């Protein structure tokens, strides 16, 4: 068992429980619908109570970091979309900006605005998918249909912009390949007006719903201190009360120019994480509205040579992906291919907190906690 994390429970086995079954090892997954992919969890149980658990991962490992060493910088760009495939645009933004930093260039303002609009749309799409599946895991079926219906509108905008719905490959190193299509601003504005009342609708279904509250309040609680020790970032960290968002702390793209809040929670439980993500969707809408109103004219590509050959050196750049801090560490040896690319995946690091969050909870809560961590196994395993 993995006992290295700070245990908050007295793990002594109780004297004698029903049927003398003091401890039970239960395997969950990897083929389990509530694990959001292929995650295997080995649970150590006393009756219904979780004493500890171990995650077994790697089922989706495709060796992305190895592939990177055998591709040029440009060729590797579409691969990053396939890590966190529900937030492909964020992955692409992080990678493109990291390479731009290594080349010491900057994308033009217009490109940055387009990037912000698409990334924030993607954040909403990612949160919608999280909400739908998380609620379904807990037993509320309706939100799934609502969120997938509305997420479709975002995917339609992506499709019109770059021809792809999920693995978009929307950005290029140095800016964007495509100019916005005719009617892009109108579509985005229409979407903002359309989805704002829909978010209220999701909240109406859940926020005061007695079953939802019972299943999420005081479930999977994690303190801010534990979050920082475990390197947990994103909405999970913010729901524990740490007001930290890379878009504010170390602004990238055009985020400096927009006015938005960083929602936080207090209790660090599943319910607070739900509220934080709901508030984040509204903040994303605010950002999109400002960006689309102020989108500047000008070029969408910086001057980048056809053959990308950064000088010898290394760089770490990270962005606030929907799931937390997504970082790229790139080492260049001066050739056209990266010497090493390391991806710092938020899902991988956040998943490590599952053990701490589930101790002392019931088996059914494990499902709720996996959902609330918002992991994507494609990114965990890479």
């Amino acid at each position, binding site marked *: 068992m*993995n*006992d*290295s*994390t*700070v245990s908050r429970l007295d793990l002594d086995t109780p004297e004698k429980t029903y049927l003398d079954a003091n401890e039970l090892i239960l395997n969950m997954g990897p083929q389990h619908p509530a694990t959001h992919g292929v995650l295997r969890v080995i649970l150590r149980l006393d009756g219904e109570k979780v004493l500890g658990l171990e995650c077994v*991962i*790697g089922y989706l*490992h495709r*060796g992305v*970091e*190895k*592939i990177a*060493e*055998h591709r040029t910088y440009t060729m590797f760009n579409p691969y990053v979309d396939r890590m966190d495939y529900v937030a492909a645009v964020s992955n692409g933004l992080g990678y493109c900006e990291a390479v731009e*930093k*290594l080349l*010491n260039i900057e994308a033009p303002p217009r490109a940055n605005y387009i990037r912000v609009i698409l990334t924030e749309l993607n954040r909403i799409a990612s949160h919608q998918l999280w909400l739908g599946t998380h609620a379904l895991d807990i037993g509320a079926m309706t939100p799934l249909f609502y969120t997938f219906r509305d997420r479709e509108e975002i995917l339609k905008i992506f499709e019109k912009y770059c021809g792809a719905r999920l693995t978009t490959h929307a950005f290029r190193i140095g800016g964007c390949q495509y100019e916005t299509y005719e009617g892009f601003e109108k579509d985005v504005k229409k979407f903002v007006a359309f989805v704002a009342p829909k978010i209220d609708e999701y909240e109406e279904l859940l926020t005061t719903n007695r079953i939802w509250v019972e299943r999420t309040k005081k479930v999977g609680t994690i303190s801010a201190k534990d979050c*920082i*020790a*475990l*390197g*947990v970032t994103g909405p999970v960290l913010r729901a524990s009360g*740490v007001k*930290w968002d890379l878009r504010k*702390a*170390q602004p990238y793209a055009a985020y400096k120019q927009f006015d938005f809040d960083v929602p936080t929670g207090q209790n660090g439980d599943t319910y607070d994480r739900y509220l934080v993500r709901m508030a984040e969707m509204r903040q994303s809408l605010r950002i999109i509205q400002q960006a689309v109103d102020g989108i500047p004219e000008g070029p969408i590509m910086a001057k980048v040579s056809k053959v990308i050959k950064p000088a010898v*050196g*290394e*760089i*770490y750049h*990270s962005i606030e992906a929907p799931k937390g*801090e997504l*970082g790229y*560490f790139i*080492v260049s040896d001066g050739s056209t291919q990266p*010497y*090493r690319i*390391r991806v*710092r995946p938020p899902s*991988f*690091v956040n998943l*490590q907190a599952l053990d701490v969050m589930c101790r002392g909870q019931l088996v059914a809560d494990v499902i709720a906690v996996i959902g609330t961590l918002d992991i994507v196994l494609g990114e965990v*395993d*890479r």
Partner: protein
Amino acid sequence: MPWDSPLVADLKKQYGSGLDAQTYLGQNYLRVDRSLIPNILKQLRDKEQFDYCVDVTAVHYPKRERQFDVLWILYSFSKNERIRVKTEIADGESIPSSVDIWPTTNWLEREAFDMFGIRFEGHPDLKRILLPDGWKGHPLRKDYGIIQQDQEWVQINLGIESGQ
């Protein structure tokens, strides 16, 4: 480019020549002697408030005598500052684990072990994390081919001739 700051002056006074501070494209990093790990990491967390360990990873340079760079990316919430700490180790040499400094490094060190075969001394449960337990070889080493695989493992466990 050399990097100068009160932090560096402080550390240099204490550790002298075992440490070299550089900055590249506005990002600061420390090159430290292996013998200073983990003390310097502990000090960075306790005294300099680098309370969040973002990442632990490695880079393989097969032509060098000390083949691996092991590096820690650190962040301080109170200072909003990031640094990298790097050290060089030879193939087969181990390095002290930092799990008791930052619990987050547990899985990160396991991944570095899985991908490079670097042993972290004092790690509570050092085993493979992404690849199956019985797998032979460490894929992110430069001498591991891109289509290379553990043929024997594939044949026994998957019941197929080859994974390709």
